[in-house]
């Protein structure tokens, strides 16, 4: 093999080695990026689990209000504020859900946490709606009140 040809061949192999080396080094960088990405996912997962726990705690506390006796007008006024602020919070959280969590869900990221978070949001809406019925709507429904009287005779 002539010297010039050999040099070309060596250079070609050398280029291939350098290219492979470059790709390997670039891959290391990608691995770091993947790790950062995974850390980000874990962070989102943690934030969602915290929010789920907080919402579920609120749901249990609101449910327990339905067992209170001797609700006076002042209590009703505060309850009305609680229902209004709950409705406001739910609206904010749903907007955030659509804006930030739907795109993740569509990519299959944090599926289980996002599903549980949506269930917690739904339960939250359900419980403040129920409390509104219990204290503001059903007691004013004459048929419902008559049924309660009838129940007492059983």
């Amino acid at each position, binding site marked *: 093999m002539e010297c010039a040809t050999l040099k070309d061949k060596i250079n070609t192999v050398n280029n291939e080695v350098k290219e492979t080396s470059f790709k390997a080094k670039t891959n290391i960088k990608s691995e770091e990026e993947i790790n950062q990405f995974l850390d980000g996912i874990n962070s989102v997962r943690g934030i969602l689990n915290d929010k789920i726990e907080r919402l579920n705690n609120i*749901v249990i506390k609101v*449910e327990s209000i*339905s*067992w*209170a*006796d*001797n609700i006076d007008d002042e209590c009703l006024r505060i309850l009305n504020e609680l229902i209004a602020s709950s409705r406001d919070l739910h609206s904010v959280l749903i907007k955030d859900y659509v804006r930030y969590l739907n795109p993740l869900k569509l990519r299959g990221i944090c599926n289980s946490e996002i599903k549980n978070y949506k*269930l917690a949001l*739904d*339960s939250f*809406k*359900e*419980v403040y*709606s*129920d*409390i509104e*019925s*219990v204290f503001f*709507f*059903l*007691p004013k*429904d004459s*048929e*419902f009140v008559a*049924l*309660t009287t*009838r*129940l*007492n005779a*059983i």
Partner: protein
Amino acid sequence: MNVFCLSQFKIEVEKLRRKNSYSSIDSDIIDNFINKTIQEVQNGTRLNGNNINPYIKKRLDGRGGFRVYFLLIIHKNSVYLMFVHPKTGASGSDNINDNFKKSLYKDAIEAIETNNLFSVSSNEKGDMLVFNPME
């Protein structure tokens, strides 16, 4: 505590248990209502104010996220299961409205007055609900 149900409840359970995603309905009801005391089931959202016989909506933990509506008659040491629906999945539905809550209340009172009820227990293995007509 005695456990009874309305025919509507029985129909819903029989419908739900046929679907894979709601197959936990029997065990969820058994875990929450069978062989329990009145005190143990007296939680959830009380719908009829401070009446001595509470009309309750309860969220059951678990896959189907079932919602159960029931009435407690304390002096009879009895629970009357009125209606159940899943919150999630293909048959999942939103919160029921006040008219439906009222209609369930009426149906339950009428069923108790006429004894148009089923007694509810679990089978020997303890994994399936058994309904027996009272009339």
